[in-house]
């Protein structure tokens, strides 16, 4: 508890270019950017593969292998290869981290939709694209959102590695705190990250309420 008071109770921690608000903003900035890029890649790809059923096996296998890619290793490699100075080196490993859960869940979600439902949709004269967007996607939405949520939480928590290569974000408190053994900073940073993750979780719960049809939510 003392650590938390030290961290959150110190006025200096709240202001300036290395204050808590700035760090949170920075953290959100790369997390959001990485997450959005990943979502833009993985959701359409997952929908497409789930819909056509082609390449599904490859996707699942690759996604699992991609989970194994160590973020830290990728990060330093990318920095070595393209240098520091921009957020790009951080985005690449984070995107790599964020894609698999979204991709796999979207794919499984679409593929898992009851075959009869698909059948009924085509039988009523929906065209392929209408079937995908009007029937499959809404039905798969809970799983798609689950994938997005898992991915977002991982990104928020892992974005702290940005600090390792000298970028900002909440990881600064952790890396710097570790280096200087200021435990209050380490714990404070971790708490902030956990809170962000919690906020993400809550955000998705709300999103789920809003965008998922009660009809689909109940079925699961």
């Amino acid at each position, binding site marked *: 508890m003392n650590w938390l008071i030290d961290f959150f109770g110190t006025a200096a921690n709240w202001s300036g270019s290395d204050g808590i608000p700035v760090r949170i903003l920075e953290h959100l900035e790369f997390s959001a950017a990485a997450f959005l890029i990943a979502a833009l890649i993985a959701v359409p790809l997952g929908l497409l593969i789930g819909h056509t059923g082609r390449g599904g096996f490859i996707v699942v296998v690759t996604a699992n292998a991609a989970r194994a890619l160590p973020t830290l290793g990728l990060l330093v490699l990318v920095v070595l290869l393209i240098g520091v100075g921009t957020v790009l080196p951080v985005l690449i490993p984070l995107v790599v981290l964020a894609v698999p859960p979204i991709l796999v869940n979207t794919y499984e979600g679409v593929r898992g939709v*009851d075959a009869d*439902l698909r*059948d*009924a949709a*085509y*039988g009523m*004269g929906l065209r392929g694209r209408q079937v995908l967007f009007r029937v499959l996607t809404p*039905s798969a939405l809970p799983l798609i959102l689950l994938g997005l949520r898992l991915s977002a939480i991982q990104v928020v928590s892992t974005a702290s590695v940005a600090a390792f290569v000298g970028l900002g974000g909440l990881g600064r408190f952790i890396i710097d705190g570790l280096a200087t053994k200021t435990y209050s900073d380490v714990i404070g940073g971790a708490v902030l990250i956990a809170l962000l993750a919690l906020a993400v979780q809550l955000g998705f719960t709300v999103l789920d309420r809003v965008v998922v049809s009660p009809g689909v939510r*109940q079925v699961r």
Partner: protein
Amino acid sequence: MITFEGVTKRYPDGTVAVDDLSLQAPTGAITVFVGPSGCGKTTSLRMINRMIDATSGRILLDDQDVRAIDPPTLRRGIGYVIQQAGLFPHRKIVDNVATVPYLLGWDKKKARARAMELLELVGLDSKLAGRYPFQLSGGQQQRVGVARALAADPPVLLMDEPFSAVDPIVRASLQEELLHLQSELHKTIVFVTHDIDEAIKLGDAVAVLRVGGRLAQMADPATLLSEPADDFVREFLGKDRGIRRLSFVPATGIRLGSVPADLELDEDTRPLGWRSDGGLLPYGTFNPERDSLRAALDAALLSPNGTAIAVDGDGRAIGVATRDVLDEALARHGTRPEKRVPDPDREVPASDPRRAES
């Protein structure tokens, strides 16, 4: 009218699901495809709305080859009902029903009004309209499935074992409902089932298929029962063919005798039982206006003296048919029941089942 002309379907793995099928499903009638599992019923049905394309042969919809029509367009003009209803779980009932109208670009209000109308038509309470499919029982979901297929008022309806997932009691009521609907709507319906009783109950024409997708016999139900084309059909029709085809003979033709003295009646002349030493004995009744010869026979068999009591719609005794009279009626109609012909112009009051089904 839907015409199959030498239609064959061979799946990529070599299975011949339908083999040189030629038949006609008449306009305004219910044509039932029946046969054992795997005999190609579903395949045949789905070739009509091009969910599956035939390998060779043609299917004509009122003289137009379905192959000439863009599939989604074709399908929007054909209602399609499947076993699990296939309702969209994420849409409310009313929107499920309005799916095709929305697709056709109807305005939302009109589409919903139409959906509400249909829900009523299939016998669903309008307060279910706002629910989601999971909140409905299996039977209710099936009704919604039918309503949805009817939404854009397609002339043709394809139904693939629509009632086989519900329990027998609900199933019977869904069958009644379908007959009732058809008596009002006169759609061209192709109905698939593997249950011969259902086929006979619903079909104006019944096509019996055998495994390999070949047509074994196509006839109206009464003919089918009296003159099965071969052993396969006879076997498939099962027992009681003689009794069952009595269902197609109305009981109107029976000469009724006057109510005998040993039948005890209440003040409204409703029968109470046959007098005997040991008190009243059981009796059986039939309504000559509505029932079939089968019901009359059943009534006779329930009475100790073999006499069936004829009652009116209110259950009042209006006469009796003695065993002799009945025998005579059976002899007259027994072997050659009248052919049932679909009669699209006859309007049947809703409270009254259209058929002489007992």
